[in-house]
């Protein structure tokens, strides 16, 4: 049975786990096995990519797990590659994203137009990563659309990491800055902010509205309002794109998947 390779920095993290699950489902239905190379499950000691390209007929590269020179090497060898939530403009490799622009527009519109908030805190992802950059740019655009100066919001660097987000948000709480909403670039960072607000005795959503991008069991359990990016579906679509290439379709550019707003208890 031919195999698809998946290269990721950590197969146990929520996003990567769901992408892999979706990709495996499609691979199995189309007669492929899957080999996962998870290179950075220990953040302190990431290792080099060990996937043997002779064992696979195509590669899914999750986020920025594969350096540009190694992607180039794969292309030189004629191995089809698809990127998941990552783009390398200098290389003709297709990618699959969820719609960051639409998703952030829906979140911001809900917070501003539906909930009436005017003083948001934004917890951003990794600034050098495309999802992080597109979501923050989308957030700033939506503030303008709703007559709020982007400079009036408070911006925190959360790096798509709940602990980092919590540390940054704790400082805002301690500083006494006035705010009425928290918009986070992913739901795990929103969840971290929600926990701190509740611990501090703040009324959510009466006093502060909290929303996050993406959705998962943790968001549902916390009653968090999100835009649901179905990450398992993103995994499925990524595998389809890769298999399409293996089957001979020449694909460049980006496949974008829709998201939808899920209003729960942390917003009004």
């Amino acid at each position, binding site marked *: 049975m031919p195999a698809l390779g998946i290269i990721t920095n950590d197969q146990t993290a929520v996003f990567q786990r769901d992408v892999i699950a979706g990709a495996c489902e499609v691979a199995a239905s189309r007669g492929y096995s899957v080999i996962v190379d998870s290179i950075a499950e220990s953040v302190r000691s990431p290792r080099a990519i060990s996937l043997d390209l002779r064992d696979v007929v195509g590669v899914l590269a999750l986020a920025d797990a594969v350096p540009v020179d190694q992607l180039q090497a794969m292309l030189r060898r004629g191995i089809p590659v698809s990127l998941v939530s990552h783009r390398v403009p200098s290389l003709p490799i297709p990618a699959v994203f969820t719609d960051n622009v639409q998703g952030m527009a829906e979140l911001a519109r809900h917070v501003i137009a539906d909930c009436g908030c005017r003083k948001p805190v934004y917890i951003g992802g990794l600034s050098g990563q495309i999802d992080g950059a597109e979501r923050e740019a989308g957030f700033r655009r939506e503030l303008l659309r709703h007559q709020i100066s982007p400079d009036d919001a408070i911006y925190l660097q959360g790096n798509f990491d709940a602990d980092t987000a919590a540390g940054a948000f704790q400082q805002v709480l301690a500083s006494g800055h006035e705010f009425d909403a928290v918009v986070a670039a992913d739901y795990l960072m929103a969840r971290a902010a929600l926990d701190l607000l509740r611990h501090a005795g703040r009324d959510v959503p009466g006093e502060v509205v909290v929303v996050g991008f993406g959705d998962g069991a943790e968001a549902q359990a916390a009653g968090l309002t999100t835009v649901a990016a179905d990450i398992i579906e993103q995994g499925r679509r990524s595998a389809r794109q890769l298999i*399409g290439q293996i089957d001979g379709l020449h694909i460049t550019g980006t496949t974008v998947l829709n998201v939808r707003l899920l209003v729960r208890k942390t917003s009004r």
Partner: protein
Amino acid sequence: MISRSTAGKATHGQLRRHNLQLLLRGVYQGLADNRAALALHTGLAKPTVSELVAELIESGLLVEEGWGSSTEEGGKRPRLLKFVPAARNVIGLSINDERVLGVLTMLDGRMIAQHTIDLTGIQGQAIVPLVIDVIHGLMAQLDAPLLCISLGVSGVVDAAEGFVTYAPHLDWQNIPLARLLLDRFQVPVHVANSTELAAMAQYVFGLPDPVHSLAAVRVGSGVGIGLVIDGALYHGGGEIGYLQVAGYDDSPVAAQQPRLETVVGWPYVVERMHALRQRHGGSLLPESEGELTYLHIRHAAAEGDAAALALEDELCHYLSQVFAWIIGLLRPDHVSLAGPITDLGEALLNQVVRRTRQLILPEMTEKVTFSLMTSPHVVAVGAVARALQLELGLV
């Protein structure tokens, strides 16, 4: 579509296709939900309806689901028929100077996936392989058999032949787009002007209440007009950016009659904003021209920024002339403004409508309604709407 039957007496095949579409549309639009009701609605004989419905079920476009109520006289309860939106997929594409954007949808317009390629720095024949890449990207995501491919191009298009005659922003001349794609993909291919398709999208999917006739004015780098009259796309629209309009009193082109796209197209807006900013000073707008967006202008205007307000006033001056000519000549029920300029919001539209009413007789505008088409996918979705009309007669 690139091949079209000649006028004259319908063949048996054409008649059968017409009747199949009639029945399918009846169920799709909720006008009838069983064979007897379809016969009543269409005037077709019951045996004919049964035979054609069987064909639609066989093709997967209809399914039998549940039972209806029996008539007052009693009798057998009818088997209910349901339209299956997931039976086929449609690919709709929009091609302009910035990007190729494709959407993959079900038959009710619901989007499955988008695929985009940025065209920055790419022009001419080099765009064609990228259009094919986008179609490939969406074909990899097909959930059902592909019904057809439908494209909207910013330029002069011969829709009957699927031929792009002239698209200056793409540096395209005489591109037989439909033929190229038909040869490659072996499915029906439709091509039309982008703004015509924007009008179609608004007509089919965009308005809460149906209208008979609609005009869309799309403003981006250029300016286009699209018309839908009694449900049919009118192919006399397209690019109007070359038309001359009355100059604005305060602008450097006041003494002339400038061409429309040179006074409302985005490149002009950037240049003019820079000049107005220098004149008025202390503006809320970003220093760098590269950062400027319509949303910045909208925000600044709402905050009372003199430069942004002056620019909006100029744009309204020009757009109201376009609206007035459209309404004066065609009397549409509805006029929509589309394209990136819609980021200037309802405030701009309201001002344009107010100015339009000053230019023509009040009774001409009193029944006309207006809207903004803000979706970034409007052309691609319009391409899908047109495909549904031409292939299945659904809209």
